[in-house]
């Protein structure tokens, strides 16, 4: 494939990765920013979103879009509710102590993963996309008669992949609006800045924590519902998003939403471009190297306000 179309394909594929990754990572970052909890089970909430999407989409007959839409609404709510429950039952009991929450969420990771294995099974199952048209993309060629459009072999995207990118942007704008323009966002930011002061002003911090934990998990589940028509639901699918989300959150700055989004774009696009032109392994190596460099030279992350 020629360089131009090849790069365009790489960027498009990278944009889909970045879109899903930014949703997942924003969830993780939010939980860390507000609660100072490193949620190792975040990838399993992602996986639960995909598995529930398969289950819900299967329960609906009729057009594929109907089941998918239901999944898009119900799966994040259900996963969010589950996370709220986990917060009340587990995290609250151990007082949000940083070390103990890490161990507790590792335990939660295994419980969620193994319960899914025992109930849903080890198979990868597909969810039908609500719409999926292959869109061949043109490329400009400078011929003797001036610029001309042609359609290179393989340069294409599907309408669904474009929709994933669009949906992710819309959700991120929504999250930003909630955080900056609403009362609940104000309360969250207040809790993030100073927990004790927020408590003194009568903010029900524990309820805010439960809400944030649920909201973060719901974002991961939403990302999974969006990606599942492309890549299928599988009980081990939570590993990669967890690792990439951590990478993104560390690079962007723990707790910083704009930083997370920028880092997700950086990692997603570079993953797409590097794995297309070189190898997917090299893309992972470079991402990990970048994390190491950030930790050494700018431990607070690119956009982090203070040392985490």
């Amino acid at each position: 494939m020629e360089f131009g179309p090849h790069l365009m394909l790489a960027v498009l594929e990278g944009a889909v990765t970045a879109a899903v990754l930014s949703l997942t990572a924003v969830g993780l970052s939010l939980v860390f920013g507000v609660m100072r909890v490193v949620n190792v089970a975040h990838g399993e909430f992602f996986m639960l979103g995909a598995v529930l999407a398969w289950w819900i989409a299967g329960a609906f007959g009729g057009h594929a879009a109907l089941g998918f839409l239901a999944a898009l609404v119900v799966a994040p709510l259900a996963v969010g509710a589950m996370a709220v429950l986990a917060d009340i039952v587990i995290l609250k009991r151990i007082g949000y102590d940083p070390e103990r929450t890490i161990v507790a969420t590792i335990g939660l990771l295994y419980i969620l993963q193994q319960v899914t294995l025992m109930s849903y099974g080890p198979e990868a199952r597909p969810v039908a996309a609500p719409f999926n048209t292959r869109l061949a993309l043109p490329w400009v060629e400078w011929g003797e008669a001036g610029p001309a459009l042609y359609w290179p072999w393989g340069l294409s995207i599907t309408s669904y992949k474009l929709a994933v990118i669009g949906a992710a942007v819309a959700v991120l704008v929504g999250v930003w609006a909630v955080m900056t323009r609403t009362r609940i966002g104000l309360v969250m930011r207040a809790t993030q800045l100073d927990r004790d002061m927020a408590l003194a002003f009568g903010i029900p911090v524990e309820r805010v924590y439960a809400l944030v934990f649920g909201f973060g998990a719901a974002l991961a589940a939403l990302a999974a519902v969006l990606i599942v028509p492309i890549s299928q639901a599988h009980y081990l699918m939570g590993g990669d998003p967890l690792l990439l989300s951590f990478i993104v959150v560390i690079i962007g700055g723990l707790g910083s939403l704009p930083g997370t989004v920028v880092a997700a774009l950086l990692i997603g696009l570079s993953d797409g471009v590097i794995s297309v032109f070189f190898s997917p392994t090299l893309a992972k190596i470079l991402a990990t190297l970048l994390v190491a460099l950030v930790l050494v030279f700018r431990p607070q992350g690119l956009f982090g306000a203070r040392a985490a």
Partner: protein
Amino acid sequence: MTTKDGAKRGTTRRGALATLAGGAAAASLPLWARYTHAQSAEPIRIGFQVHRTGIGAAYGRWYDRTTQAVVEKINAEGGINGRPVEIIAEDDGTDPKRGAEVVEKFANQHGCDIAFGTLFSHVVIGSAPRAGELKLPYFVVSEGHHVASGMLNRYTLQPGITDVKSQVQAMAPYVAGNLGKKVTMIFPDFAFGHDHRDYFTDAIEAQGGQVLAHIAIPPTETSFTKYFPKIPRDTEVLYHVMVGPAVLTFVKELGEFFGPSAPALFGFIDSLEAVDIASPGLEFLEGSYFWEGNPRYAQSDQTIYDKAYREAVGVDGNGASVSDPKDVSTYAHMFGCWETLYVVKAGMEAAGYQAPADRGKLIEAVEAMTEMPEGYAHPQGAKLFNGKTHQVFGHQYISQVKDGRLVRVHTTSIDDGAYPDEVDYTKHPL
């Protein structure tokens, strides 16, 4: 817990079918009389190493069903040397390290007579050395060339399924003669895929063709479009073989990448094992070709043996479970479990196997085997076993997708897949 699960599943109505089929077959067996001389009523314990979880889970599910079915049939026919067969299943997690531990458990904890089962080549390669050290006969159903290459040991045998080297060598003349000579290969990046890469490249060159590019994909990959631009523009045939939970995504993205202007596609059915050919997004496969170890769809000239085997395992004419048409089998591979356990039975009876002390005799008895005629014990077709390399050779099938079904268009001869011996395990000590 796993054993209990397996046993429970075995007593469904599939069980009843197997018993009926078994009863009919048993009546024709001439060896009934010798069972009365059995010296022990203890069951023969076969450790079944199975991919219940991990990337091989779909294969594991069907290897399990096939194994349960054939054991019921063998037991209904009088067992082995008059003793019933008991399967002790352990999940290897499609993981080489766990695989070796499972083999160890079979030998030391469960007191198994032999170990049997697993598919994924890295698990076999990880487990076989331990089986050799424990002197535990290890019958694999794996397809990899690692048995016949001499990499493993005297206690590891593959008598129920042909190896990749033999398969691809038999495919190359058909690909070069009917589809094209400029080939690009896409394969999973581990031992099994490397067998494809090495042996098909040689085989197609021997046919005057060439491989333009090798594209290796990690078996745990979940998104594939990024690999496809590496396919050279002048590719005439795209040769694809993929494994793991994301095979459906792989094939779908392949179709989305090419759109209407694809090269000829030749795939190993591994890319679509346990996946319905009629899934949305796979319409582009119409007219493309697949290697099949055993034709998934019942063909118009279906043998009585294939019919009986399908019924016993509980597979319908479309290669799916009779109880759930969406549960598509790994039909091109799982016959290997059926045939391997019949080879074990024949080997144990020829060796007069009584106890683990006779394990060496069992190895020698299997090594002495040669021709295996098509029949109820070998429903996939006739086979020729090579005792020196511990590898069986057989017919391969090429099918074309027509109206959303795989229709067999070519059957290779056993000779098409033959190659010179690379090892003589019989010279290794027992």
